[in-house]
């Protein structure tokens, strides 16, 4: 395949060009309650080409091999239009790598019969369905087994296989007109065994959904809060992480000035890292979709901005080193700058010490959703607790928090010593990316806006 791609590239006139061919085998099985809603196991593929010429850089994606010449033509036209509009793209240098990467899997799902996967999901769905208060469940199996081939005119030739697995969904509890749901997910990128023997997790999530029926809606207002690791991870990803993606700030001159390396943006408690080299995590990979080896990047150290994530194009624009973070979700997309695994580093205090320091406020748990618009962010908590005098009290629901990144980074008072990474990813920047991991410790933030109902 690498030779075929190389021959295709030889037909384009460009200062640089690359081509990616990606084959994806996806398997899924979806249940509503214990009824099988659908089951699939299919293979799809496609090509993505990129052309750099006349100081412009453009891409095109096609399904069929015979459309690749048309894709190269469209990408060449796009690059020329961009270059003539006054935008001058500079691509950073990166070594041309040749490699073949197989993942280290504890249980290769391609060797497991589909029926076993269906039975496993049915079992987890029934566990939650049989619990008191649960009205319905939606649980599904997701297996994405991708094989990527990358060739560039600089001489790179890489094959990498990445297998992402998850079983996830929700439990919905109902009493009268009141419906409450809790999400559940287990998974990762290290094999099928991670999905086995997870009954306890599904029991725990079912219990939480039922308990939410007795929770009070949170009152809107401004509160001091402790976020649990799931919430901290979403904060790291949504509020801060997207700003550390160089393509987000590349063409916004005022934001770019604010995000200068060395800027003191946060409190001393803020230490944030992007590390897609951590094995087994959903955000793990060896090479990005430009053939650059991914490396660990310390994004913030004691509140000071120390790094950002790059593609070849943004590294050239910022005159910084590539980091290997240009990633496309699949064969339909060009790569864009993405995080992989991002997390807050843990601090010293124990969790109870953090809650003692909180005093009065809210303890918010398990993120749902999240979105940013520049420096403003919002995301929800699936449940939470009122905290009075350092004691965790009654459960609350319907929680969304909103804030300004720069204000909030200064208001983070402490990070606890606990640490947890999520098992399932989902980032909606441009293209839904399931290889998105995040996490961290519990953290204490002063003065968050909480929108209740």
């Amino acid at each position, binding site marked *: 395949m690498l030779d075929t791609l190389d021959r295709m590239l030889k037909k384009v006139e460009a200062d640089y060009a690359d081509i990616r061919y990606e084959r994806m085998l996806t398997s899924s099985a979806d249940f509503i309650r214990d009824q099988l809603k659908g089951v699939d196991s299919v293979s799809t593929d496609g090509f993505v080409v990129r052309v750099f010429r006349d100081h412009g850089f453009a891409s095109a994606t096609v399904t069929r091999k015979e459309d690749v010449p048309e*894709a190269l033509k469209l990408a060449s036209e796009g690059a020329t239009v961009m270059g003539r509009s006054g935008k001058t793209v500079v691509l950073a240098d990166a070594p041309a790598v040749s490699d073949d990467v197989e993942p280290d899997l504890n249980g290769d799902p391609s060797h497991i019969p*589909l029926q076993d996967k269906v039975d496993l999901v049915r079992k987890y769905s029934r566990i939650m369905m049989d619990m008191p208060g649960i009205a319905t469940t939606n649980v599904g199996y997701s297996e994405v087994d991708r094989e990527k081939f990358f060739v560039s005119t600089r001489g790179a030739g890489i094959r990498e296989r990445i297998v992402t697995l998850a079983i996830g969904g929700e439990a919905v509890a109902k009493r009268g007109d009141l419906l409450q749901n809790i999400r559940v997910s287990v998974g990762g990128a290290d094999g099928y065994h991670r999905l086995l023997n997870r009954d306890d997790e599904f029991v725990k999530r079912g219990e939480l959904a039922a308990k939410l029926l007795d929770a009070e809606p949170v009152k*809107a207002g401004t509160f001091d809060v402790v976020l649990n690791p799931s919430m901290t991870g979403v904060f790291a990803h949504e509020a801060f992480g997207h700003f550390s993606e160089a393509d987000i700030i590349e063409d916004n001159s005022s934001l770019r000035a604010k995000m200068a390396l060395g800027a003191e943006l946060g409190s001393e408690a803020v230490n944030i890292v992007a590390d897609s080299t951590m094995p087994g995590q959903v955000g793990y990979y060896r090479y990005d979709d430009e053939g650059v080896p991914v490396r660990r990047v310390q994004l913030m150290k004691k509140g000071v901005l120390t790094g950002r994530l790059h593609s070849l194009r943004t590294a050239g624009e910022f005159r910084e080193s590539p980091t290997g973070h240009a990633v496309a979700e699949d064969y339909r997309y060009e790569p864009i700058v993405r995080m992989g695994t991002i997390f807050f580093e843990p601090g010293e205090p124990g969790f109870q010490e953090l809650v003692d320091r909180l005093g009065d406020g809210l303890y918010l748990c398990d993120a749902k959703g999240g979105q940013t*618009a520049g420096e403003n962010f919002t995301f929800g908590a699936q449940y939470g607790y009122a905290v009075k005098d350092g004691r965790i009290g009654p459960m609350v629901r319907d929680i969304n928090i909103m804030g300004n990144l720069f204000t909030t980074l200064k208001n983070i008072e402490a990070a606890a010593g606990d640490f947890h990474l999520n098992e399932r990813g989902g980032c909606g920047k441009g293209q839904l990316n399931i290889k998105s991991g995040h996490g961290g410790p519990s953290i204490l933030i002063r003065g968050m806006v909480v929108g209740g109902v």
Partner: protein
Amino acid sequence: MEKLLELASKSGCSAEIYQQRTRSVELTRREGRVVDTSASIQSGCAIRIIRNGRMGTAYTKNLLDRQALLDRALLSLENGPEVEFEFPRTVIEPDTGAWHDKVEHSGFPEAQEACVELEDLAGSLGRDCLDTSAGSAAETVRIMNTSGTDILHRSTGMTGWISARYPGTETGLNAGFAGESGIPVNPEVVRNLCEMYTSSLPEVRAGDGRMQVMFLPGSLYGIIWRLTAAAGARAFHSGATPLKDRKGESVLSGKLTLVSDPSLDPPVARRAFDDEGVPTRRLAIFDRGVFTGSYTNLFYAAKLGIEPTGTGFRSGMWGGDTVSLAPEPSFRNGTFQTGEATFEEMLGMMDRGIIAFGLLGAHSGNIINGDFSVGFNPGLLVEKGRIVGRVKDGMMAGNVYDVLKRVVAVQDRPFNPGSSRRDPAVLLDGVSVSGK
């Protein structure tokens, strides 16, 4: 496709084949320069088969080996769900007016021209705060089944979009335009956008409390989403919907009628049949506030014993490759029917309130229950009928079945005529707002 159908028949299955091909180009400019161009030519083919009351599915991007595709569908059928529907027989003549060859082959120079036209119209703001994009798309969909259906949809469309960004942020005001053979840029819409932008430049604090909120297309979708999530047949089948047993009941203000009408959609979205070959039609799931019943695909129609509504589409909440998705109940481009007040009259009704131009976090919260807790992105503060600034760190929260009983007025026309959305502005009273 015919041969594949024949192969499926020989295996004792009834079958449906869905084939799609799309071509699209898009160009994006920021601060007066092209920053991104992308092009995509995608095709694919999906098959659904039914045998002995079970369904199997498979799809491929390249239909090179028909037997292999059918074999995968047969394998999926072994573990497949039980279904009680049959593929429909539909005869519809193709809508030939929706296809324009020149659009199918249009490229980046045309898109760039459209962007520059939009930037020129908003010239008073200066290019530094302007983002524009434009592009074209062509789509062909063909559905065949063993009941005798063989229908074709071909359409082209061009879109243009402009955003005026507030200094030092990624938040702004935007407007879009969509047409079948060109981009119907409406100078009045751009002029209004510029005026709203200029008057909303100062950052202001909204404070906490209940106040009037005017929803525009960029925020109304968050409200409509909650209604359609609860009204869909999937929610009814699972029993998890607050609308259960409420058919015929008045649940919203009498000023609100929620309609989906794919025949009125902008060209590239206009469809005479859904992705299962069922003819589309105007469907009002809330008629003057009264819930009239669920919308469905074929699967749930049979499960619930209701008639198909032409709303089975291969669409997912987060996108996805169309051929890979199963047809699900989808209230496509659903929106509120226009009312009787002009936008200026509605502004005059606001003593102190917020125009929700866009939302942050519409996808979080207990959607099926109708709850929302979202940030303004942006929210424009209105005092005595005038926009005085944009709200800093503001959120609003509530439940749609509560707030949609307090409708003050619905605009007499779509807020953005010529755009891909037909939503009017909707003014609500007593929405809970929080902000520092």
